[in-house]
């Protein structure tokens, strides 16, 4: 028995069992809806104004004959928000490629830069305009947060882009970028998963994708059934969390009047051991 307990403790952290169960349930929901989408079932997705305005921004830049700026945050290639930003960049670059408009993509991470160069190049090729792709437009600036913010702000002041996109992971530089962009009069669309930066983008940008909307963008823009299925799965996973939250609120309210072991057990069920 002791040997079994030692093996369990060594090969599986039992304190994280609840996290594993939640992960399995939420992943199963997402995978179920992906499977459903594969079978061709139509899925409804609500309107996201920030993403609807992408074409408006591209159109405006084309009309004015000015470039567009796309900033994919300060996260590395392993950051989910940066990955979401790359998905949107692919779409934006494909739309831009149809017109003779420059797309400037300054990067903070050389790995992200390499991926984004390929991404933009492939998007131009898919749009049938590989000759319009300029390698220098997707460039590396610096590896540090504030020098990067200053370099991008300088770029905005000098090049005067007609549209600025700020998508991905941002920290304190978000307001510097957004305010510098607002001062140039550009139409600005932002999206971030960093909840502390959302208010800054909301006040300084025309449209803001709040939190999860950033991750929904690739499905929303491409309308690919598999991605839409994933989005639907996310919504149902959210429903599960809401039900658990309501149950927790009800149990703790009852517990305040009639203390019971069950309500304490329920609360402990959701307590994470960290990690």
């Amino acid at each position: 028995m002791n040997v079994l307990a030692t093996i369990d403790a060594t090969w599986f952290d039992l304190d994280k069992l609840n996290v594993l169960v939640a992960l399995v349930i939420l992943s199963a929901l997402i995978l179920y809806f992906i499977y459903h989408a594969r079978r061709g079932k139509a899925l409804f997705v609500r309107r996201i104004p920030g993403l609807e305005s992408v074409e408006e921004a591209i159109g405006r830049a084309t009309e004015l004959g000015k470039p567009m700026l796309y900033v994919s945050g300060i996260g590395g290639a392993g950051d989910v928000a940066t990955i979401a930003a790359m998905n949107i960049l692919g779409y934006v670059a494909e739309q831009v490629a149809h017109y003779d408009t420059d797309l400037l993509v300054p990067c903070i991470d050389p790995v992200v830069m390499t991926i984004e160069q390929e991404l933009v190049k492939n998007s131009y090729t898919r749009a049938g305009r590989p000759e319009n792709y300029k390698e220098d437009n997707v460039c590396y600036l610096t590896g540090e947060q504030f020098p990067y913010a200053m370099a991008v702000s300088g770029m905005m002041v000098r090049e005067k882009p007609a549209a600025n996109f700020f998508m991905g992971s941002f920290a304190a530089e978000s307001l510097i970028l957004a305010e510098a962009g607002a001062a140039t009069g550009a139409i600005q669309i932002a999206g971030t998963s960093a909840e502390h930066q959302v208010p800054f983008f909301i006040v300084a940008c025309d449209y803001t994708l709040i939190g999860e909307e950033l991750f929904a963008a690739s499905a929303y823009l491409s309308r690919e059934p598999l991605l839409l299925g994933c989005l639907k799965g996310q919504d149902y996973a959210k429903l599960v969390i809401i039900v658990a939250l309501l149950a927790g609120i009800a149990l703790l309210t009852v517990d305040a009047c009639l203390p019971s072991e069950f309500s304490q057990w329920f609360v402990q069920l959701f307590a994470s051991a960290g990690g």
Partner: protein
Amino acid sequence: MRAKLPMLICMVTGALLLLQFFVPHPFVQDTLLEWISNSAMIVGVFALAIGLASLLHMHGNKIKRRLPGWGFSVITLVTAAFVATIGLLKPAWGPTVAREQYVQCEPDLHGSIRTTRVVRVVHTLFGFDPQSSTTNVLIGAAIMPVRANRTPLYSWYFTYVHSALVSTTFCLLAFYMLTAAYRAMRIKSWEAALLMVAAVIVIIGQVPADQFVPLGHINGVSTFEWLKQLIMDYPNSAAKRSIIIGVALGGLATGIKILTGIERPYLGGGD
């Protein structure tokens, strides 16, 4: 094969990283994680070379073609070369920023004068100390040298140039916050009015306003501090947590899409 191999590497690495969260075994926590972290470092070093090449290419082209703002490109390249060069210099060649100074104390009960050694950072013009020299002083019976502590040039550059510039940039945020707050709090709708009222309460609650204006107390704290905490703990936390839950689910879904190969942005959009 060109697409399948990176996808396979991505899936296996993703699965291993997921595994390490649940498995506390030393092999997983030490050996495996160290291997993954070393691999990431190797990729990072190569990527840095690519980044540097991009920087040289872009700014080199700007200078060559005398494009508008080419002067800034010259400054960028010269600075990059300067920082790279000072990083290679011997630390002993750096400027003196600290000197060991001695303070002579009063005679003690036995009549002997005690000298205490203290190290004091000498702040001179940008860290350079023109008076630095090495002399000897007597401490008790021992002769101790006064050492001029030299700092590596890159460390000097980091402290007196880089950090100063970064702090200046960070300070700009205060002005940007002011303009952003002005824009956000213009009362155009009832939502904006609500925001304005909440912001005023939080701002007043943040400062010791009750020291100047008697505003009363609730639960032992000033009224505005109590109201501020109420706003921060309930509506503000609720809104933030809803965003966090959405982001966590979005991250999970993105992770699944990447692990199953539904989304492959790391392939550069190619198939």
